[in-house]
């Protein structure tokens, strides 16, 4: 059973311990930034920043509000990046993480195009660039440790467990306090389901979560076409073969 994480946005206090713990564990650098008017910094994920907290001011419940959203690879159940990768550098592991093998990567960046959440980042400045994204701390989990972000979090915003336990927990929390949570688990169906799920007290579209992501795994879209190719190829070949046979029969008699 794949490991999953439930991110309960009502618990996050925006301390960004997760952002720093991730950098420390993964030995990522810091970049020179400027303050642009809101606290989200770096403003977007990059090859040195696998996770960040987005600060969003909302006026949803009272006339003022502030939400803090943890942003990182969603570790989709059927990842588009893995399907798009021509060399199998990205793979969905049985343990849950979508993992990246830099040895196989050819730098085509199809994964960046394919990802509906805009997650994989590229080391543009490097002469031997890798794709960089959250690893779900698979090496830590294999050693029985929590991912760095989850271990650091002071308020237990993230809860790690097997996938079906996470789904059950999400449903239970929403059912227990229906006036507190919006009636939606983000990641349950989006992109065919992800291993990082979110529940929230503010509607997801007000928090900048990507809208319009289909409730089907993206590989499925191409799969419905791709999977029918063998039959179609065989069918077309057989049909054309039959046509050729019938046509060929006539010409043989004429030539006599």
């Amino acid at each position, binding site marked *: 059973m794949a490991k999953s994480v439930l991110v309960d946005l009502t618990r996050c206090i925006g*301390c960004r311990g997760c*952002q720093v713990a991730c950098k420390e564990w993964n030995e990522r650098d*810091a970049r020179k930034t400027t303050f642009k*008017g809101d606290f989200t*910094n770096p403003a977007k994920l990059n090859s040195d920043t696998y996770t960040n907290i987005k600060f969003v*001011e909302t006026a949803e419940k*009272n006339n003022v509000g502030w939400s803090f959203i943890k942003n990182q690879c969603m570790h989709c159940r059927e990842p588009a990046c893995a399907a798009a990768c021509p060399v199998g550098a990205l793979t969905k592991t049985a343990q849950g993480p979508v993992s990246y093998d830099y040895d196989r990567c050819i730098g085509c960046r199809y994964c960046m195009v394919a990802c509906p959440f805009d997650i994989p980042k590229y080391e543009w400045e490097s002469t031997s660039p890798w794709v960089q994204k959250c690893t779900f701390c698979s090496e830590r989990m294999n050693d029985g440790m929590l991912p760095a972000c989850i271990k650091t979090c002071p308020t237990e915003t993230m809860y790690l467990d097997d996938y079906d336990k996470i789904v059950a927990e999400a449903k239970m929390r929403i059912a227990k306090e229906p006036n507190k949570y919006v009636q939606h688990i983000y990641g349950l169906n989006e992109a065919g389901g992800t291993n990082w799920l979110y529940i929230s007290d503010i509607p997801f579209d007000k928090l900048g979560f990507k809208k319009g992501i289909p409730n089907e795994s993206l590989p499925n879209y191409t799969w419905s076409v791709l999977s029918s190719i063998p039959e179609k190829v065989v069918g077309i070949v057989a049909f054309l073969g039959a046509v050729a046979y019938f046509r060929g029969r006539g010409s043989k008699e004429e030539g006599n």
Partner: protein
Amino acid sequence: MTNHWIDIRNSDVILIMGSNAAENHPISFKWVLEAKEKGATLISVDPRFTRTSAKADIYAPLRSGSDIPFIGGLINYIIQNNLYHEDYVRLYTNAPFLLNENFKMPGELDGVFSGYDAKNRKYDKKAWAFQKDAEGVVIKDETMKNQYSVFQLLKKHFSRYDIDSVSEISGTPKDLLEKVYKTYASTGKPDRVATIMYAMGWTQHTVGTQNIRAMAIVQLLLGNIGRAGGGVNALRGESNVQGSTDHCLLFHILPGYLKTPSASETTLQEYNDKWTPTTKEPNSANWWGNYPKYSVSLLKAHYGDNAIKNNDFGYNWLPKLDNGQNASWLMIFHEMMQGKFKGFFAWGQNPACSGSNANKVRSAMAKLDWMVNVNLFDNETGSFWRGPGVNPADVKTEVFFLPCCASMEKEGSITNSGRWAQWRYKAQDPQGQSLPDSEMINDLFFRVKSLYEKEGGAYPDPITKLAWDYGPKDASGKVTEVDTHLIAKEINGYFLEDTEIKGKLYKKGTLVPSFAFLQADGSTSSGNWLYCNSYTEKGNMMARRSQEDPTGTGLYPEWSWCWPVNRRIIYNRASVDEYGNPWDPKRPVIKWNGKKWEGDVPDGGWPPLKNPDGTDNPKAMKAYIMKPAGVAHIFGPGRADGPFPDHYEPLECPIQENPFNKSHRINPTAKLFFEEGKEEDIFYTCDIRYPYVCTTYRVTEHWQTGVMTRHQPWQLEMVPQLFVELSEELAAEMSIKNGDKLKVKSGRGEVIAVAAVTTRFKPFKIMGSTVHQIGLPWCFGWQYPEDGSGGDSANLLTPTIGDANTMIPETKAFMVGLEKI
């Protein structure tokens, strides 16, 4: 804190005011959220909607500097609606005490209490005396209906804080005031409890102490002190500042909150007599009556065998203050500015950024002959001589930089806000040439001592007679390596002779089990009586790591150690009724089982006030053992600015007149620094150049002035430079956009900051006018990042004035102007 961090999870209502705990004490939110999961209501009151407000059930805005009206309104609400815990108030506070019949209050005296001396800006506190009988016992009215009773005076005083008046002065909408008051006051019932989490947002005002007093009064009225989930909880601003105040690194106190002697206390007897309270009140433990045991034990710790009865145990080797001398932080730089200091140790601090009116602080440093800056990194203080606008050629100060190592590079203890002292271990050796502070002090001591011994001096004994047994010594007697365990043991204290107490023999040289065993005859030593019990013959109590919690209320009695004597919730004898039964059986702290107390360490082992048959127990002691009369102070006769809190505006404020006290706009006892002709302490109030209320605060990502965190690239990446938060409305008025560069200026200085236009500040309606408030963090300094891109310290704006009792600078409310650049 009267309680502790984990205990917060036991509250029904949590008020976070004068604090942004989610931002600055993020780990505490583990406990706050746990309380919320159990149904608690979180209230955030703050001029700005913060990361704490984001998690609150109720958010109420208020203008910086209007906390006393806000809380005063709550006191009024509690009394008018009879929501106080009457038995608690009657039994455990001085509410029934009668004041002398001449006592008058600001409502009648236009802004001051009886006894005010306008010329000297101080009170003669004899005017606040209680009525006493022929034996000297205070006359009380247990019904609390007598017009001279503290309770009736309290009611009358706070009747001026009706909701309309409060709303006018604070800018908080009336419906929100009602909501907050109703929710909080619901905990006056014995089985409900509330706590307050506060920090610098309350203390850093000219009325800071009275802000806290107001809340203490609320908690006493509601019967919340001594209770699990209750208390008055100060969130300390540094991981070991509680340790530093316990060991009294402040001019006016000695370790264990003893008093620094003054020049007129020429003998130990006079000193002890002055500070040892006496009482005629029956059944009062008057624990500070043990003062001489602690002062003499301290002297024995300092001077060892050199301290004997004949020389007053070395009392005259202690430095003394001139009578009435104020040697507080603001005074240091005030006098330094006048050239009165030759040298200055800036030890583990960055005053060039942390000091209020930082321009004055920086200029003052140039008057020194020498400075020693001890820190992990170079900073604005050690490099003041090459700061912006300073020509190094003009500065004659010789500056020494001593690199010190970080906390994980040495062994020792820290004490957290909850009074829990935890032993910490060394993770790695100090880097490069850096040294632990203890080694530096050790080295310094022996060099100074040796110079005194060779050359003499004005008064060598205070140094040369010190006992200094902190490690193995070389042939010359110098300690070669400091062992912090030896320091910790000295702090705990030793029996200096074989001593018999209650039939048991304690051998000379053994550690004293607790401060109850300390003596005034020189037979015991203790470097800090509060910490006596922390390192005993049973071992280092601070190093304990047991996760057992027998009571289930989060006391964890064997996880580290706390003072006093591991009592986790202080004043806990007020958590029970007269028979020793908890007011709240679901969350008991202690309980009398007929023979002794169970639960937390009781605030003294004496039996409950009443016997099971309802008669008074003569062996009982009243609950508030640290007060001479044994009861908590609703009427506070010891504060410089009045026995009850009252509203005074900050030094710089947006209104001409204080509607509560028309003749006294500001605290009538706050020390004024400004002198005509000396512009450095100038202040402006109701000046069109400085029309906005300004406050300063912290961010999670940076630490204090940022000396450590600006050097951490991951931290700087998240919050890279100084910003100023302002409302969308103010931004629209001034055509300011998010990300614009602004100049923020006050009467004393200016800084450049990036505009953060936000919905989280909104304009206030104060006394009928619109008042805007803005705020900035104070974690930046010109020295690093070296290109200056971080900006400089917000303290370049703040004023030279402090609280009337503590002198803590008023950095939370002052007036500024804004300019686009």
